[in-house]
């Protein structure tokens, strides 16, 4: 298929609900090391609410569906990552508003706006050891793959996200609770960046 329709978007929300539920304990564990340990709960709360409240939506504008999902997350999970995800979905959705279908170019616009939104909201940049470090490479890969089919492009984006996560391990955290550990945060895997990889995974509909 050359583009994603409404059913695909709902399926993605359902994937994300499932994935973040499956990874709940792992994310809690990661966030417990130098954070408050809520990230697994946050992500699963955010995407469960987004899916459950959107699954029967009458809305046909893909952009609006994604924006609304973001607003639901903001209410359901107001922690740092919940709010950043919400911001991402709202900004990303706005970037593709009016579309009835989402092509690879739209996916690229969505994720570019998504990451830009997070960076603006979080006053963060690549290299700060945050979710940006897995999502920005993924968004950039999508940007460079506009000519490809969505699923292929997303699979490449996932590889970039994973590489980004890997390279973020050596960074020193600049934001959030983990940043209080300063130098000590080097070597640790950032829970938000990990969640970013899972987010991309959720968009992949083919095996």
């Amino acid at each position, binding site marked *: 298929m050359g583009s994603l329709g409404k059913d695909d978007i709902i399926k993605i929300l359902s994937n994300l609900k499932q994935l973040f539920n499956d990874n709940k304990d792992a994310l809690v564990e990661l966030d417990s090391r130098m954070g*408050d*340990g*809520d990230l697994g709960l946050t992500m699963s709360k955010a995407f469960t609410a987004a899916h459950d409240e959107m699954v029967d939506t009458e809305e046909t504008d893909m952009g609006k569906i994604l924006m609304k999902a973001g607003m639901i997350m*903001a*209410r359901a999970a*107001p*922690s*740092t990552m919940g*709010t*950043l995800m*919400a*911001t991402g979905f709202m900004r990303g959705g706005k970037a593709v508003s009016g579309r009835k279908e989402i092509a690879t170019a739209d996916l690229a616009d969505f994720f570019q706006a998504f990451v830009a939104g997070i960076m603006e*909201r*979080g006053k963060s940049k690549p290299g700060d050891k945050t979710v940006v470090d897995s999502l920005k490479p993924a968004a950039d890969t999508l940007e460079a793959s506009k000519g490809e089919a969505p699923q292929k492009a997303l699979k490449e984006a996932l590889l970039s996200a994973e590489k980004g996560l890997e390279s973020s391990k050596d960074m020193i955290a600049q*934001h*959030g*609770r983990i*940043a*209080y*550990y300063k130098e000590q945060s080097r070597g640790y895997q950032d829970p938000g960046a990990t969640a970013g990889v899972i987010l991309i995974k959720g968009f992949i509909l083919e095996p």
Partner: protein
Amino acid sequence: MKKFLNKPENFVDEMVEGILAAHPDQLAIVENDLRCIVKAGEKKKGKVGLATGGGSGHLPLFLGYVGQGMLDGCSVGGVFQSPSSEQMLNVTKAIDAGAGVLYIYGNYGGDILNFDMAAEMAEMEDIKVLSFAAADDVASASRGEEGKRRGVAGIFFVYKVAGAKADELAPIEEVKRVAEKAAANVRTMGVALTPCIIPEVGKPGFTIGDDEMEIGMGIHGEPGIHRGKLKSADEVTDTMMSAILEDLPYERNDQVAVLINGLGATPKEEMYIVYRRMDQILKEKGISVFHVYVGEFATSMEMTGFSISLIKLDDELKQLIARPARTPFFEQVQLSV
């Protein structure tokens, strides 16, 4: 976990229900949401609305400072969790009296993001919003990186000063100016001896040896600057005071107000033993004391420990701190200046 609780997941809502039941003439909610607290009664036209918000588990922070001479509204999060931007927005809409709303909150990631979102949404509704994040915890980042510091008990002074100024019907820029001035002159440092338990988690957030203390630990158990054997009250006070005094710095002939804040389980007896030493140090340094607050102002449920805050006063700040205030958690008559 030894707590007086019903279902842990109802901890925050039941707490708010109790607070509303106990102080119906002083507090109310909006949008039928227990997490959106406002001052009861008519709002004063033309007065800047003051809003705060933050995680639960810190009473009297944050909602405890909603009242006369202090704040107008507060959004209430889960334990140690930010409230949502939507709740902040609802409070903002309820307290705006035409002169705009100033957000004063602690410098924590989740709270900043949500207050920023709420501010954007409020602007879309034509409410002027300015924001200010208090960051007084000396232990959480070094000099030169003040902007990264956590907000802790010293925010009490910022509320007090901004509240008094807003009561004068000053414009929002002026209210923000005095809030910033107060914050620029406050420094805080804490020490903890035992952790606390988030009801829904059911076990302590960190562990610490039976003979250990952690100086500089944050109110959610964030790492401090020194963990070691528990020292005498005087030694602990000396360490904390020298970090605070050097930071601003506070100097000979300065006048300050003092806040000794219990984190939860530390008795007032011990806080006064600490103040005894502070008094000796301040006298030695030639720093005079305008007023001393001792009690629980920003807690971490049943954590053992305390924090010390100093605020350097000029005449304007002193006048504003001296003004009377009345909330269900804090009462003060006009202090003589």
